[in-house]
């Protein structure tokens, strides 16, 4: 490719040809495997999607004249006879952080070529993810059946509460569910020795990036939706 550029220049075929030759030159801009770079680019685009949801939520919440429901009470759980505010959400947060920890360990053991530990830690991570989705299903059921909240209506106050809640947590839950499937598939391949034969455990790290991102998004949802 470099020789092509030189030829184009010496032949005097014009500035545009030089630009094309330069941009098409086979040079690597980022010193990371392409799969990892593509995952980062995808996560960057996903950042914008989640940000648009959260900013849209901020806008409807700021502009509504009907009072917003008391989130702390809506998501409280009754333990014995005391209502603990936001208990379910706190447990969900801890579950997701724990899963992020096990995922980080899985990536670590992957690079040490410890097949059994990597696969086991990834399956544990997927298990925590499934637990998280299960708790979210419980939360949704309670909100829909007991409180009567709908994406278009909310007996507790501002109707926009239902719209933003189901949109934001639904999209996040979808990401967690996709992550559980993704991790299970990769864990199976780890166990089969697929990455030993391929000679690289990059895929585990790439799957890890996705999983940590899901946790990262939850940090923002927790702060803005549940603590505001």
């Amino acid at each position, binding site marked *: 490719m470099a020789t092509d550029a030189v030829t184009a220049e010496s032949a005097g075929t014009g500035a545009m040809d030089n630009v094309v030759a330069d941009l098409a030159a086979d040079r690597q*801009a*980022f*010193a*990371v495997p392409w799969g990892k*770079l593509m995952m*980062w680019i995808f*996560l*960057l685009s996903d*950042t*914008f999607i989640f*940000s*648009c949801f959260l*900013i*849209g939520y*901020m*806008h*409807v*919440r*700021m*502009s*509504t*004249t009907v009072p917003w429901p008391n989130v*702390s009470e809506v998501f409280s759980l009754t333990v014995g006879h005391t209502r603990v*505010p*936001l208990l379910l959400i*706190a447990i969900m*947060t*801890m579950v997701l*952080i*724990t899963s*992020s*920890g096990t*995922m*980080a*360990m899985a*990536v*670590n053991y992957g*690079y*040490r*070529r*410890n097949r059994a530990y990597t696969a086991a830690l990834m399956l544990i991570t997927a298990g925590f993810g499934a637990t998280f989705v299960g708790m979210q299903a419980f939360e949704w059921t309670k909100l829909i059946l007991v409180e009567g909240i709908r994406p278009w209506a909310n007996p507790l106050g501002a109707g926009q509460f239902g719209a933003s809640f189901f949109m934001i947590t639904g999209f996040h839950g979808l990401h967690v569910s996709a992550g559980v499937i993704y991790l299970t598939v990769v864990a199976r391949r780890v166990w089969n020795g697929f990455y*030993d034969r391929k*000679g*690289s*455990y*990059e895929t585990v*790290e790439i799957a*890890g*990036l996705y999983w*940590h*991102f899901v*946790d*990262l998004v939850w*940090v*923002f949802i*927790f*702060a803005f939706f*549940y*603590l*505001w």
Partner: protein
Amino acid sequence: MDHGADQKHADDAPHAHAQAHAEGQQHPVAVYLWIWVLLFVVSSFSYMVDYFHLHGALRWTLIILFMLVKAALIVAIFMHMAWERLALKLVILLPPLCLLVLIALMAIEGGYTFLTRLASFVH
């Protein structure tokens, strides 16, 4: 499988760190465990903000502070951004800053819509 056999030695931590650039991102397990503990601690702090019913500017400062600390720990350590080259850091971390403009615009717009609704619909 010769390569695989070599990697077995990576099980002792100091050696593993030396190989960080030899193959992928390899760091001592202790680093991850510490970050994990920190994430737990900071999460319980943000939960406490709600539990003790803090309000106003103090609540907002603490919520956003804890949120940013957690986000930074996850991106820097768990996602290994701290060990990547500057080119990748800039390409991934700078674009989201545009969102600050959108946040500002929507906050202004939200306030305006609220006042318009008060003036037109609420009597």
